[in-house]
């Protein structure tokens, strides 16, 4: 009886432990092995890492959880990797003859799973995966799998698609990187800014995938955001990649993430900014955002992340002062010069109405060519409210007909009812 009870208890614990360890350790094992074998053998690295967890699940359910589960996993992975290298034919041809002189006649293969090498390998892997040779979508998918240890099902859920599609996408992306012979390394200092750009874009897309995701799964959405922040933090911690724009992106994500719990209510509905309970804003993340924004304030290059982080900072200040809106307007003016996006154009026009008045903003809004965007008509409706309520209603109704999600439709309907 006693043993059975203990067994059942272990099973419960294991159910939590193995997926958690998978999330944190799979990516480390894959990165180290892949770095050791070369990107061409990434599937072998993945297989060895997966096998390691399979053996863990089997062994631990029979013999109980070892004292140091992580060291246990590393040991198994190391042995499997050594076995693979010993069997590998190229290895035999090229290196084995030299090893014959070894007195003990043993082959000395080292697999370095030290914290330093784990960290370096992951960072190098980041540059390999976020390579301009593959599409941003493929970069995000591979990042989730190899840098974040997400399961295929989780990735499929995040993209609202099926496992088969994701498997195909990842397969093609790996094939492409292999064909291009992309090496696993941190780019040379002369190249780093350019390559970092792609890495940062992927991290930001990953974050947005979680923040604005269509997926209803709250846990996955939050995980995507925090994984993006973790990857960015790895870049901040490394002296070669600790650049102002990296700090700016991290700051931006901290500010946004600070509202994560306030922007969705218990029923999973979006809570608009003005209706959010500021008590639910995470002040720790707000101050971290401020810290990294300060760290970003060096060098002579103003990136779009700097501007977006500064805008995000103002969004953490729920005041309605002229100073705030003038600052937000000027930040948008500069952001749009660096990179146009419809959402920045709309937010700029809203800030313009707050800083310079609604009439000027209406004139500017009507110049924007965004007739298929329901946010555009929502903005026009807002601007006309109390100036010409008839026109305001017309615009809101146009927005209503263009809105796609139930949540958006409800929000717009509420505005019409208020008129």
């Amino acid at each position: 009886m006693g043993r059975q009870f203990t067994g059942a208890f272990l099973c419960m614990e294991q159910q939590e432990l193995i997926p958690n360890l998978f999330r944190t350790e799979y990516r480390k094992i894959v990165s180290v092995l892949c770095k050791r074998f070369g990107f061409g053998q990434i599937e072998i690295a993945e297989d060895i890492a997966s096998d390691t967890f399979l053996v863990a699940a089997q062994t631990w359910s029979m013999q109980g959880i070892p004292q140091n589960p992580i060291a246990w996993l590393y040991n198994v992975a190391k042995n499997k990797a050594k076995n693979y290298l010993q069997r590998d034919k190229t290895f035999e041809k090229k290196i084995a003859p030299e090893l014959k002189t070894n007195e003990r006649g043993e082959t000395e293969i080292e697999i370095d799973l030290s914290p330093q090498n784990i960290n370096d390998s992951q960072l190098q892997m980041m540059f390999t995966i976020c390579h301009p040779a593959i599409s941003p979508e493929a970069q995000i998918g591979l990042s989730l799998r190899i840098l974040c240890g997400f399961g295929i099902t989780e990735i499929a859920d995040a993209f609202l698609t099926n496992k088969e599609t994701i498997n195909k996408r990842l397969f093609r992306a790996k094939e492409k990187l292999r064909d291009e012979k992309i090496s696993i390394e941190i780019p040379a200092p002369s190249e780093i800014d350019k390559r970092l750009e792609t890495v940062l874009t992927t991290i930001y897309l990953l974050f947005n995938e979680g923040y604005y995701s269509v997926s209803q799964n709250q846990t996955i959405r939050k995980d995507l955001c925090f994984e993006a922040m973790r990857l960015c933090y790895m870049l901040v911690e490394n002296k070669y990649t600790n650049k102002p724009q990296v700090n700016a992106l991290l700051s931006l994500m901290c500010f946004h993430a600070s509202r994560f719990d306030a922007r969705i209510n218990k029923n999973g509905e979006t809570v608009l900014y003005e209706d959010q309970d500021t008590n639910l804003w995470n002040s720790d993340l707000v101050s971290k955002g401020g810290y990294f924004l300060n760290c970003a304030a060096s060098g002579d290059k103003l990136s779009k992340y700097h501007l977006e982080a500064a805008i995000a900072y103002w969004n953490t200040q729920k005041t309605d002062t002229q100073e705030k809106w003038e600052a937000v307007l000027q930040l948008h003016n500069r952001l749009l010069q660096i990179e146009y996006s419809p959402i920045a154009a709309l937010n700029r026009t809203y800030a313009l109405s707050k800083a310079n008045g609604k009439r000027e903003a209406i004139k500017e809004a009507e110049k924007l060519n965004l007739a298929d965007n329901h946010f555009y008509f929502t903005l026009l409706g807002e601007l006309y409210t109390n100036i010409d309520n008839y026109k305001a209603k017309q615009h809101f109704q146009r927005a209503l007909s263009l809105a796609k999600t139930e949540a958006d439709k409800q929000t717009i309907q509420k505005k019409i009812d208020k008129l």
Partner: protein
Amino acid sequence: MDEYALIMRHEDGTKIASPEQIQVWMKQTMDWIGGIAAQNKFSSGTGLLFDDARVVRSTKVVTNGPFGEIKETIGGFIVVKADSVEEAVEFAKGCPVLQGEGNTMEVRRIAKNDGTH
């Protein structure tokens, strides 16, 4: 879509504006450029400083500033994307430089380095 340079021409570059005036003018210029950028029609912009300005003449004589007998001077220019010169002119009309009497905006299509110009 073509690119046009919108060149800001000040009738008298020797006029000195107060810091407050400069601040107002800066905001208006930024709002003007932001409005063009919000339509995805902004390409690039270059402000020109009066500090350290020099004029080199055909005699190779160098004088300070673009001032003196040639009063008119260029304050800066931006490059916009436009379907027609008329559209570019509409952008130019919004430039705060035109608040100064005698100031002008010159609108010039940019040569496309493709051998046709």
